[in-house]
């Protein structure tokens, strides 16, 4: 077990370095940040001085090594656009995105799994058909369109929910949370649902397919023969055996939620990481872009590690020690 974790950690460091290198070299092609930082009347001397000050005149490998060296010490540089340390900016924005992703994941699971179980058990009922049709919409419509439709419906026509931004947050020791006020909830619910919809339909379809598969297996027939209650067969035996693929997919999807949150955050003007990165890209704010990509890579690595560990908890077969090399 410890071997396994250590091995994964070493792989993770390697993955992170590769990501850092790729992202860093990509940013050499996004343009010169100087024009965004000075006004149209700035002289060539002013531009050159700023370029020198930012170290943009160094060769690219040297810029990269400097950057990695600083990152190791927790120094991610200072944002070109905002003039603040990047780690401070990310720390300000991260809670908004994490709360959004967390709520979306919960929504996707809490709605998607029961819908999947229901459609798996009652394949031919009309409600199942309705669920499946809805899920088709959820899978095929792009996120920004769903967001705009929700804004139009609940924000403009019905006027129930605010159309943009994050309001009513409460400060919990530096962590701004939306979950403690009604106003906070009214702001987060639409973006969270928008973000969740795709995952929700995916999970529902996955659980349904797995349920159909599992319900045909012998041990379910035996369970029935033993006279167990239908409820205990469905949830205790069938559902539990569908969970391994669901966990895998969900793990990957949490990473995707973080990435997709860029679109959702732009549509809802949600002040999180996604909005930060999209503005950084428009402004060619290289310190933020590099740090963001490395951070997202880190999330993916951590999530995958957690998923691997969860397999152990769910699937007893994996807990048996691996056979020796003689195998």
């Amino acid at each position, binding site marked *: 077990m410890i071997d396994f974790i250590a091995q994964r950690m070493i792989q993770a460091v390697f993955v992170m370095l590769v990501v850092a290198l790729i992202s860093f070299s990509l940013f050499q092609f*996004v*343009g*010169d*940040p100087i*024009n*965004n*930082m*000075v*006004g*149209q*009347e*700035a*002289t*060539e*001397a*002013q531009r050159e*001085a*700023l370029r020198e*000050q*930012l170290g943009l005149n160094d060769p690219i490998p040297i810029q990269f090594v400097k950057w990695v060296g600083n990152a190791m010490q927790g120094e991610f*540089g*200072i*944002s*070109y*656009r*905002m*003039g*603040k340390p990047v780690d401070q900016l990310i720390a300000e924005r991260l809670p908004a995105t994490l709360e959004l992703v967390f709520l979306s994941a919960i929504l996707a699971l809490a709605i998607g799994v029961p819908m999947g179980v229901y459609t798996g058990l009652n394949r031919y009922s009309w409600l199942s058909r309705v669920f499946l049709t809805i899920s088709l919409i959820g899978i095929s419509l792009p996120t920004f369109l769903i967001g*705009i439709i929700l*804004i*139009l419906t609940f*924000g*403009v026509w019905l*006027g129930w929910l*605010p*159309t*943009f*931004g*994050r309001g*009513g947050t*409460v400060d919990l020791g530096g962590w701004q949370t939306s979950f*403690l*006020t*009604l*106003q*906070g909830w009214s702001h987060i619910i639409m973006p969270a649902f928008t973000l969740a919809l795709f995952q929700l339909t995916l999970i529902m379809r996955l659980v349904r397919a797995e349920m159909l598969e599992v319900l045909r297996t012998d041990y379910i027939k035996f369970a029935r023969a033993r006279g167990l209650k239908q409820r205990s067969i469905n949830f205790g035996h069938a559902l539990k055996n569908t969970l391994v693929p669901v966990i895998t997919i969900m793990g990957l999807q949490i990473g995707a939620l973080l990435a997709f949150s860029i679109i959702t955050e*732009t*549509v*809802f*003007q949600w*002040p999180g990481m996604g*909005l*930060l990165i*999209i*503005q950084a890209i*428009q*402004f*060619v704010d290289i*310190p933020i872009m590099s740090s963001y990509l490395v951070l997202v890579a880190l999330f993916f690595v951590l999530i995958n590690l957690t998923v691997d560990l969860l397999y152990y908890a769910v699937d007893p077969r994996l807990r048996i020690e691996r056979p020796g090399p003689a195998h």
Partner: protein
Amino acid sequence: MTRPGLLLASAALMALTAATADAQDKVFRYSTTGDILGLDPHNNNEGPTNTMKSNIYGRLIHRLPDLSLEPDLATEWERTDDTTWIFTLREGVTFHNGNPFTADDVVYSFERQSQESSDMAFAISSIESVNAIDDYTVEIKTKAPDPTLLLNMPNFYIVDKEFMDENDAFEVIAGAGLQNFANANANGTGPFRIVEWVQDNRVVLEPFEDWWGQDERTDNIDQAIFTPIGNDATRVAALLSGEIDAMYPVPLQDIPRLEGEPDVTVLQGPELRTIFFGFDHHRDELLDMPGSGENPFKDVRVREAFAHAIDKEGIKRVVMRGAATPTGLMVAPGINGFQEDMNEPYPFDPERAQELLAEAGYPDGFPVTFDCPNDRYVNDEAICTAMVAMLERIGIDVTLNAQTKSLHFNKIRDHDTSFFMLGWTPGSYDAHNPLQNLMTTEAPGSGAWNSGRYSNPEVEELSVQISQTVDEEARNELIREAFRIHKEDVGHIPLHQQALAWGVRADTVEEVIQRPFNDIDLRYVTLK
């Protein structure tokens, strides 16, 4: 009730009361695409940021919505000789923190704003020195006779010497570097003071009760909240739902829709920015014709052919949906030096264009790459796509290179272009600014954005004279002459001025005065 439950309930109650406390006040909420860049008045030379600075900071002279000048911190001024001006300052003015305003602050502000690292140094670059004669009189000496000194004064922001010194904030820190105190904290003499700035989220302002002009206040707001909303559709939705009172720009395709809403009005007017096209006048061989040893753009007939090939009315009607003013000059109406009678665009005449190309020796056209931004001006890429078809009609083989502004500007600043699109608003509201930046290359500090390196000795000479001629009439004649030569040369092809479009809630807002700058001066906002 359990403890977490109690905590939750009380927090919810607090939030509700906080939300309703200000319900009586007149709160003006407005939005545009991006946040202000910072609060340091001597940095961040960008339209919307400059307007926010002018809400907070006083200047010696303020520019009215019709672009004329009125006294602000200076009550009167006179020129004693060609290079000396005496400004009499307003007495009894205080900064937001209560410090009195005196001549020392003007001298200090000049020293701070004229630093090399200041992005606003251009506005006062002609000034040699600023001296305090007494507490309420300053003498400004210019390096040479400067006819545009007063026009530049609205870009000279006055800060509080004591406040800056206390916080060790003399140095203007541009872009990256150390934390910049002045960029995050503001203390001016303007009609509004900063309550809160949460970056990319909101700027909250309240009226400054001890403002010197309090008795003649033209606004009636108790609080202003500025929120950047990047996504067009979200910004429109926020206006429709009444969560904001005003926003700009309105996307062109949404104008008819918003006009159909009973509670929303759309304000439209021309902007000061002129969009134009430029050619490579410099290289002996066009980048797209390697090995040929030719640069067709060196022939005025080819440039004229291009000018005749562009259907400006068509672009206005189809691409801009009517929201543009086709133009024949490099400056817009309202800019000092604009010539009404010379503003006729080159006529659209593709046959004449083909004849001209044939005369120049290119009856079958030639290949050229067309550099365009795709996220800077209204429908920039769509305009360029339309241009491709128009130019192909006269036989030019155009390759469109439309890309994001940071790449586009970088490319054309390096002169790495044969044919390009650019837009320009003169920072000083004077015709010499585009002459210096776009239409000449020789005088020191000129040609910064003259990407095609257009240079005509006569225009170069005129530009220098214009910068030093104080007599208005003589100066205007020189400007006319320079514009006439540039137009004959087809140095650039001016296309149009884009239209401003602001969406305003009619049920909460009494009046917002729209200025040709694309941003809102809070002085001119009245609520119902």
